[in-house]
């Protein structure tokens, strides 16, 4: 029976898809000096999609036979992704224009990836999740290798592609197992069927779940699927690295949240310990290797791995009752939101510095405090925030994870202790770049950053401090946008 499609529900995606297409077409008719106009066009499309998403706030809609859902959770993430898109576009303009990249293709691919991000939090079906994940990844493979003259970019892109394809294959296998066990692809149905399975199939179910998780573990660069991240980030254009670190990773977590807290929530006792191990390994490996880094983007990549470990921690707390589940869920979402602010700020600073010194080694940051105080103050705040030290919003991100862990008790207390030690270690390398910027001597002439980049940095500074004073600004929304059943 043909079903009517609820176009209202997919309006943000439609607007963005239309923008993607028009960017390609318009680009073909622009003379080379005018090609940068693809960016304002993309920006207009993203803002349109943002308006469409905001117009849906408060609604609950379902379409495509339950595979696509619009609810508070989905909208929270859609708005988040679109805001991230605005920021990534803002820091892309000068970088892409001055770097002699194919501008039309770049914005086309970037927005396509964002389209995948938008679909992700609405996908309540295994197939839909797979499609969204691939839509995020496939264009990202290309733009990660966009610095074609640089062999590292090619290598990074290829690595990204190979590991990505491999983990996708593993995930598909897991999905087929889940389908074989339950005969369903909808997340809600899967949960119901899994509960009815006869005893004795627990191991098979756990195996299927873990195989599915593998695909997302790649996306969020969790150990042992993290190898691609540093090379890919370093090789990619800096705004693309920002996209990968923030939007692509968040999309992975959005998918993971839906899977674990909707489809597989009944099996939490089985998979939560796996996440505990995953989380501890990811944060520890990320932090320890980050200590050795000498290049800003690689540092941020390893820091991203460590942060993934922190964000994975609340998953390990699942299964102890709805109240703690809700706290854990909200902690994860809050962390993702706050993490994005500080991470985007840090990448924006890197974009500004990369104009002059594309190598982005630590010593390239020497003495920037005298050349561009805003960048130095910003970077210091973002790095301190990533370490989770007041006076920054990053403190609350970690705090809510701690709260959820201590509330859970038992293993949660130990996990919190491990995370605490890890965050202290992380401070050492997070201070490496501010140390160069503030303590070391460098050139004296002013460093001029593009207006948009400076704007992003300034906004991120304000946001990080405002979040510190009033964490309710962000911490409240995830509480309402939970997928944990009553």
């Amino acid at each position: 029976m043909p079903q009517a499609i609820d176009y209202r529900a997919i309006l943000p995606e439609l607007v963005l898809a239309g923008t993607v297409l028009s960017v390609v077409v318009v680009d073909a008719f622009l003379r080379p000096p005018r090609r940068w106009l693809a960016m304002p066009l993309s920006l207009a499309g993203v803002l349109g999609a943002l308006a469409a998403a905001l117009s849906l706030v408060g609604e609950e809609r379902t379409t495509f036979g339950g595979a696509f859902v619009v609810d508070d959770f989905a909208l929270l993430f859609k708005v988040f992704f679109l805001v991230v898109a605005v920021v990534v576009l803002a820091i892309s303009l000068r970088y892409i224009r001055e770097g002699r990249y194919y501008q039309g293709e770049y914005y086309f691919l970037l927005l396509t990836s964002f389209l995948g991000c938008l679909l992700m939090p609405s996908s309540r079906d295994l197939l839909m999740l797979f499609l969204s994940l691939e839509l995020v990844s496939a264009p990202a493979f290309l733009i990660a290798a966009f610095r074609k003259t640089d062999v590292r970019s090619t290598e990074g892109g290829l690595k990204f592609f190979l590991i990505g394809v491999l983990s996708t294959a593993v995930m598909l296998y897991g999905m087929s197992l889940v389908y074989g066990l339950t005969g369903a692809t909808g997340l809600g149905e899967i949960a119901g069927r899994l509960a009815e399975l006869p005893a004795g199939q627990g191991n098979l179910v756990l195996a299927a779940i873990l195989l599915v998780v593998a695909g997302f573990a790649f996306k969020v660069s969790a150990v042992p699927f993290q190898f691609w991240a540093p090379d890919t980030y370093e090789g990619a254009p800096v705004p693309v690295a920002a996209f990968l670190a923030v939007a692509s990773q968040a999309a992975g977590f959005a998918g993971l949240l839906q899977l674990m807290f909707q489809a597989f929530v009944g099996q939490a006792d089985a998979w939560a310990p796996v996440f505990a191990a995953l989380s501890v390994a990811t944060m520890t490996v990320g932090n320890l290797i980050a200590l050795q880094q000498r290049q800003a983007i690689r540092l941020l990549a390893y820091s991203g791995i460590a942060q993934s470990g922190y964000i994975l921690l609340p998953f390990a707390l699942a299964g102890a009752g709805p109240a703690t589940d809700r706290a854990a869920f909200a902690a994860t979402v809050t962390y993702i939101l706050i993490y994005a602010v500080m991470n985007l700020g840090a990448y924006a600073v890197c974009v500004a510095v990369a104009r002059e010194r594309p190598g982005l080694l630590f010593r390239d940051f020497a003495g920037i405090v005298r050349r561009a105080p805003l960048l130095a103050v910003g970077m210091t705040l973002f790095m301190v925030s990533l370490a989770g030290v007041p006076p920054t919003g990053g403190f609350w991100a970690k705090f809510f994870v701690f709260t959820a862990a201590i509330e859970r008790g038992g293993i949660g207390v130990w996990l919190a202790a491990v995370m605490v030690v890890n965050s202290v270690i992380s401070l050492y390398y997070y201070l490496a770049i501010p140390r160069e910027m503030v303590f070391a001597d460098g050139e004296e002439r002013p460093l001029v950053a593009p207006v948009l980049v400076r704007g992003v940095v300034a906004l991120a500074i304000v946001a990080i401090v405002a979040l510190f004073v009033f964490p309710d600004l962000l911490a409240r929304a995830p509480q309402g946008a939970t997928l944990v059943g009553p």
Partner: protein
Amino acid sequence: MSGWETWAITVATFLPAVGALVIAFVPGERDRTVRALGVLFTGAALVVAAAIAIGFDYGRASGLQFEVDVPWISAINARYHVGIDGISLPLFVLTALLSFLCAVYSWRFVPSPGRTKAFLALQLLLETGMAGTFVAFDLILFFVFWELVLVPMYFLIGIWGSANREYAAIKFFLYTLFGSVFMLLGFLGMFFRGPEPHTFDIPALQAFAAAGGFSRGFQMVVFAAVFLGFAIKVPMWPFHTWLPDAHTEAPTVGSVLLAGILLKMGTYGFVRIALPLLPDAAVAWAPWIGALAAIAIVYAALACLAQRDLKRLIAFSSVGHMGFVMLGIATLTDTGINAAVFGMVAHGVITGMLFFWIGSVYDRYHTRMIADIGGGLLQKAPRLGAIFSYIAIASLGLPGLAGFWGEVMALLSAFNPNTELGLPLGWFRAFMVAGGIGTILTAGYFLWTIQRVNLGTVPERWREEPIPDVLPVEWLSWAPLLVLILALGVFPRLVLGMTDEAVRALTGLLGG
């Protein structure tokens, strides 16, 4: 309670932070404006703090006054709860005073590499963190203020410190952060095991704990967590190793604030949080804390005897003085805790002054090595030398000066600890003896230092060098401290009058 009393604390606490923001927007080349703003904002904060001290109702010093209690973070029921009682008040006023004097001192002395704007902005930010810690009555608010001091102090040491500054700065930051994050976990534990609805409110948790709400096993674990945070900050032996580096490398103003205020945050934490919220564990841990304190006193004194760097010597002497404070706290008696709070204030005034003095000496001699200075300061710069004799004697605990009361009361209380709670009398008597030996050694090293620095003849190399005596700006920033050293020694009631009632209320909670 209405009118100015509701906003007085908030203004005094956040005015410096506002000042930091204002300074951030002043063009960098307007040096004098920046310095004037620093003095202005810290001065205004001091005026408000003084007004609080005057308006404070000393008749009911055990209760919270100037209280503000409004919701802050709904998700975790954290509140903006500030107030002041007899224990907070002296430390709060001391913070405002020392910060103001530091700003005055910075009028003339901004250490290399200059950058006055950042220097003062960080100082002001630091003041907000320090002052807030002493008035916060919500665990989360307390923690936030507590951590707020780390970043400014890191940069104060890292940019304006001496040769080994970067190492000292990161060591300070990592070490204290390590302790405080465990403290945070302890706070969260109390939150979830505390009364329904869960709360971080210190008075509410106090009442809950006094009624026996927390089980003994739970208290022991949480006490260990918060102990780590406070003990590193104090610092107690053997967690003190960050202190000599940080104090020695920090610029003068940084050392003054570190010694004068930051260390007190740790001891204040014991008095405000660890004892009343975890009374059973406090009793169980007290002998061990006393033992560590006794070791610290003797160890620090011996270490001081071995120092060749004046500033390092003063830094180590802080470890010893904080040992007396902790010994007083460990006795869990009225006398002991009164001694502790008095000791905190006295140490803040005396050691703050000592660090000012060594800063000025370094400014003139460009060395801090006792052997390089080589004696004869009293001849070369008589006033500077006399000031040193005065504060060194105060620091070693001469009766009639500020250092005396904290030490002698701590020793007295160790002679007679709170045996009703089951503290072992023999142990504490032994600690008292150790403390007594420490006092003698302290007198020894200070007198020996006076001899090596002040007395004797001026060495050849300094004879022709111009060594200016105390400058007007130094008089200005030092005079209040010099007067206070005498005043506190002669009228200990200046502090004890505030604290006594609050301390009695606190020890009352332990007995229950």
